[in-house]
């Protein structure tokens, strides 16, 4: 299935999600509001996207962008679901009930970005020690233990 067929398939099945769909970098992209993320993800799973390959985030300053990379083994096509959460209240519904693979990915995003996932069964740090302070992949993270590279190197 190519991306045009995917677009037709999506628009026939979920007309309300159709305007959110675009194509970037050879993948289908679904840009949704954070409140509608879980229902959109459930629709994507019902559409046939049975694999969750990756959950990650980007710090854009005022808000964080969450990126979920899905793949359908049957249709052989990829889909990226993106949403933005505000920096003041970085919280979004967990998708661990849809794809169990999301468990550790969401823990990693929580560990490094401080985004909480509502409904996650075991939301605690995964890469850093449990007593770590702060979330290092935030742009405003400051750690006095980090040695900055001098200009001449």
């Amino acid at each position: 299935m190519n991306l045009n067929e995917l677009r037709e398939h999506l628009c026939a099945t979920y007309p309300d999600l159709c305007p959110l769909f675009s194509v970037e970098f050879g993948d289908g992209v679904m840009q949704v509001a954070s409140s509608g993320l879980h229902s959109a993800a459930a629709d994507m799973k019902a559409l046939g996207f049975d694999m969750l390959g990756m959950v990650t985030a980007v710090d854009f300053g005022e808000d964080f962008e969450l990126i979920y990379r899905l793949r359908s083994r049957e249709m052989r096509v990829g889909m990226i679901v993106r949403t933005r959460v505000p920096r003041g209240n970085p919280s979004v519904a967990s998708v661990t009930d849809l794809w169990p693979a999301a468990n550790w990915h969401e823990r990693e995003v929580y560990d490094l970005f401080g985004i909480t996932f509502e409904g996650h069964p075991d939301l605690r740090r995964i890469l850093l020690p449990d007593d770590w302070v702060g979330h290092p992949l935030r742009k405003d993270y400051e750690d006095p233990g980090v040695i900055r590279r001098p200009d001449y190197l």
Partner: protein
Amino acid sequence: MAGIDDVAKALERVPGGGIILTSIDAIADWSRGYSLWMMPMGTACCAMELIAASFSKFDFDRHGSIPRPDPRHTDVMVVAGTITHKMAPSVKRLWEQMPDPKWCIAMGNCAISGGIFYYDTYSVVRGVDEFLPVDVYIAGCPPRPEALQDAILRLREKVRAESVSPGRARTIESILPLPSDAPRGSGGDAE
């Protein structure tokens, strides 16, 4: 082999008899130096070189160095790779599980100083010697197995020089080249 010659010096033949006499500490120090079993603490790409060292191409079994999966079987911990703050307590715990006497080799730049992760990194311990007593450092990113072999042989000389019985430390003839033995200007040094 200088090692065998040293043992021959330590042995004392009794004239006319079919027995040999030696002191317990001489034979213990000799055997201890030739069976340095490794605790392979491989966490990054240096571990690939460490694994290659054990297999047939380099075959560290000929030095008496074999990797053991249990820290209670081992004499020398080879820290091969980047140690993060999360991993450091586990490394320390494995080190404490090793029975005395024990030694430590820091293999690669990450284990020496943090290496490429020295600057601008929040998660990496800057050198395993912040919490382990390192005996031999091997520079490289990663070092070749030959460099690890050099480290094992240097550690062997250190082990054999310090005796199991207090006050019986001995000097041994080194078979390994010293840095001062290298011809000047041969290693790309700017003259």
